[in-house]
């Protein structure tokens, strides 16, 4: 982690100096990493989410904030730095993963890096996200880059294999060198209101992760109601998730701004209540530079600037980088770009 922070300039490093244990701050309050807490059912049941009001806020939030010119370029670069560059296809191969890792190291064309004057950022994406099979190949390919390797796990994407196997799957990925594990929850526990089972499952996953960071995928497209999303978020955080993540990318709908709003508000409430910070990862369906800016604005508004870092926020995306590259070229040259001008992932 330290190496990444060293690369980033400005306020973030200073904040960490003043509160060494804090991984984020909210409303001036330093926050530690999430150690989890006993399941508090009263809290879970007290979660209220008004769908219409949340949708309205999500709709207007993106019209209330915009960034232009150099600020926009900076924000797009920030989006790149928070990306989990992902490949999760049945036709993945080691070579495909190595190609992705090469792109992860050099997400922007060198001439653009120079024109934008950002060489000293040593810009890379935050992580590469793959199936367990490709963890070792990715770790090798990213050696020395500081880029983390994330493995999707626990019977991804359905999460319905036997619990023991799912736990063993995590252990194997961690042993293979994964720094981060993206687990999926059993959606049935949410539908049944079986919060204890959900909590126990996620806590078991967390234990299996050991030092690896755990991102809990809620499968929000399956959960359907925002209230379910809100409650599942709280349970996942109580069970010790380091991140909560919207989707596998395989559900009928993926990351939407209303879902993001419910999850970030859950994170905020949890942080203020417990003093512990949980990260957030929207995944799936985020394809454009404009969307990336909308998400960053949502995070800045709801959680504050402290969350606008790879330690606390990730995009799960594969296609978004291409559009950002085109936008940045436009910013640098004043001319609109084309996708074939940018190296493939």
């Amino acid at each position, binding site marked *: 982690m330290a190496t990444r922070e060293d690369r980033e300039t*400005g306020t973030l490093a200073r904040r960490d100096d003043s509160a060494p244990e804090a991984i984020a701050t909210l409303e001036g309050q330093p926050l530690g990493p999430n150690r989890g807490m006993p399941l508090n059912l009263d809290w879970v049941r007290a979660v209220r989410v008004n769908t*219409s009001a*949340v949708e309205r806020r999500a709709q207007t939030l993106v019209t*209330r904030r915009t960034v232009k010119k150099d600020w926009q370029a900076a924000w797009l670069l920030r989006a790149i730095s928070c990306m989990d560059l992902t490949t999760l296809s049945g036709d993945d191969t080691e070579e495909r993963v190595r190609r992705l890792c090469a792109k992860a190291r050099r997400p922007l064309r060198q001439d653009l890096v120079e024109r934008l004057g950002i060489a000293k950022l040593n810009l890379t994406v935050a992580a590469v996200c793959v199936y367990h099979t490709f963890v070792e190949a990715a770790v090798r390919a990213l050696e020395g880059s500081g880029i983390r390797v994330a493995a999707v796990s626990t019977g991804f994407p359905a999460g319905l294999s036997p619990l023991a196997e799912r736990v063993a799957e995590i252990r194997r990925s961690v042993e293979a060198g994964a720094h981060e594990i993206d687990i999926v929850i059993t959606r049935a526990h949410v539908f049944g209101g079986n919060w204890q089972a959900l909590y126990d499952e996620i806590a078991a996953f967390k234990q299996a992760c050991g030092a690896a960071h755990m991102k809990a995928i809620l499968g929000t497209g399956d959960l359907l109601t925002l209230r379910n999303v809100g409650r599942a978020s709280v349970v996942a955080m109580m069970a010790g998730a380091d991140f909560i993540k919207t989707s596998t990318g395989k559900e009928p709908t993926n990351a939407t701004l209303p879902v993001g709003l419910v999850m970030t508000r859950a994170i905020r409430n949890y942080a203020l209540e417990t003093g512990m910070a949980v990260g957030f990862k929207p995944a799936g369906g985020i394809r454009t530079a404009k969307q990336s800016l909308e998400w960053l604005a949502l995070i800045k508004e709801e959680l504050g600037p402290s969350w606008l870092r790879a330690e606390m926020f990730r995009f799960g995306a594969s296609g978004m980088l291409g559009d950002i590259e085109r936008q940045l070229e436009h910013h640098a040259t004043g001319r609109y770009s084309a996708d074939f001008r940018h190296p493939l992932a």
Partner: protein
Amino acid sequence: MSIVEKFASMEYGPAPEDSKDARAWLEQHGRRFGHFIASKQHKPAAGEYFDTSDPATGEKLASVAQGSPADVNAAVKAASAALPKWQKIVPHARARYLYALARLVQKHARRLAVLETLDNGKPIRESRDIDIPLVARHFYHHAGWAQLLDQEFPGFAPCGVVGQIIPWNFPLLMLAWKIAPALAAGNTVVLKPAEFTPLTALAFAELCSEAGLPAGVVNIVTGDGSTGEALVKHPGVHNIAFTGSTVVGRAIRKATAESRKKLSLELGGKSPVIVFEDADLDSAVEGLVDGIWFNQGQVCCAGSRLLMQESIAEPLLAKVRARMATLRIGSPLDKAVDIGAIVAPVQLERIQRLVAQGVAEGATCWQPPTTLPAKGLFYPPTLLTGVHPTSIVAQQEIFGPVLAAMSFRTPAEAVELANNSVYGLAASVWSESVNVALHVAAQLKAGVVWVNSTNLFDAACGFGGYRESGYGREGGREGMLEYLEPVWFQKAPALPKTKAAKAAAGKVEKSGAPAIDRTVKLYIGGKQARPDSGYSMEVRDARGMLLGEAPLGNRKDVRNAVEAARKAGSWGKATAHNRSQVLFYIAENFSARAAEIAARLAAVTGKKQAEAEVRLGIERIFSYAAWADKFDGAVHNPPFRNISIAMNEPIGTMGIVCPVEAPLLGFLSLVMPAIACGNTVVAVPSEAYPLIAGDLYQVFDTSDLPGGVVNIVTGHAGELLKTLAEHADVDALWCFGDDALCATAKSLSASNLKQVFTNQGRAIDLFHVEQGEGRWYLEHATQVKNIWVPYGE
């Protein structure tokens, strides 16, 4: 700052909207504007101009004509001249014009938005995403009403020339709210925009020309309060529509009292936002942002009073403060700014003064650590806690970004606190329980209630207030009715001046043994009562012979009657079926005594009229028994997922001064619709034959009508009317009499801005069903409450 530094800071940076086009438009006019009269630029007769400026920078934007009475006169003349042709063209043609205006607003949307932001100081996001799209929507919607006018409003005609005065907080939107329905209904218009913000109205005038609107249909006269006053007082104006402060609304009510001008007032508010413990608190906080930090809080329906259930008060306030800290204040032209400039120095001073007074009275003031722009008129978002109902900041409209927070213990107390206001414009209720939300919504004295939302507007939904927030509705069917009148009403001749009855010597002769003297008393709270004065008034027949004596009621009797009527308020909560049953039963019992009542009445009215009054009277009671459970509200269709319920609610306690000429039928024609709709009534029967009271209350007593629903005070109409009109606990006043009586009713009603319904001094033929009963009366006996219920899971 380099991109690397921006990458580190992740600030938003400036995002200015280009104002070049709007400024070019100002330049094109040499930054000097005349009035828009008969489709022409009209130089002010007195040659006077005033400046309008950008409140965010102080920059002068343009010189605008100061309207003199001569200018107003020219505009009204142009509007009058245009009227016959405009009314004669088919509704479809008017629909086309309104459609053209809607399209033109859309085509020039961005210029209008920028101009609005320059002139008013509101953030460009709001003018771009809220004001201007709603303007277009309003013209589209009313193009539809214009098209359907004949089918949907048969028997109605436009009022004529409408004078409209609008405020500075939503300049073009308020113009649309006023002009679109007026034109759709076939009126022509003279509109005066607010002095601080005349520019978009002048830009709109050009769109009228571009749309080919006939000359004189829309006229814009700019100026200050004196211009508005000239418009209000102009005898050529038939209808006045005003949006603005309660103080000015009151003055307009008085100024128009002696005329027959129809009047609608959309005034101030101190609207509550009620948050229950089972609400989605994070969403409720956004509701407050939309409620009080929208348009710098310069919104008549701003959610300026936060009422929080005690159990969640502290966590909610913590969330509110955190959210306030993320509000961005700055140049209104910046696309990422939430709070722009206050419209004028006088308004900024008012906000500062009221907040200081609130703090002096014990409130705690919290403002986020935001730096205000060095230049321009800005005020930070402000939260006042420790506020009590006694505090000025809980009572008076501040019209600024200032939220006053109080707590409550139970839903009942929430309603009590919410209704503890002279205003009644809007309210917002936050709860995840549909039972709690709708139960509370039904009890709130407010014309608009937003459930789990705030400040939603749409052309299809009526907007307007209860109590001193004014009367009349804008939007939807109810809004159209403000600009229409029944054709028969317009044609009705003036009522002759009421003459005092001539006294003649002697008493009506009776044959045989002397009759037992009939005692008629006042009827208050379901009991017969002697008059406070201890005096009686003589009642004489057509020849002037003494028929008997009726109690001479005075102001104390009125006071007692109003108190009794207020106590009987549960009548309004009774089921409509229950009220219907009681009315049918009244008719039944009345029918049983029809012959004797007719016989007594005949002495005053003649046999023929007496029999007709009784026969039609029974029918009339039947009609309103029938209507009681059929005067339904509506479900409107605003363009998003939501149920918007328009409920016809009783107004409350009503004073009714009955017409002289038909003592029985007149009483029944006015009192029956009032109680059918759930109001309670203090009625003053015809001075010509107040003895009818005795017959009526005996029927009421035997018909299960709860005590206090109808109270009867006999006496001199002129005196009793005065007490009723000035009484703050009377919510509406109906007065049918000659011009002078109607003028008194209207003028004195201004004290609490109660709704007034009069015959405008006209002779109404109550024996004619079209004139004597039906929806027109029911509409005046109710006020529409629009409850917005967005839904979704």
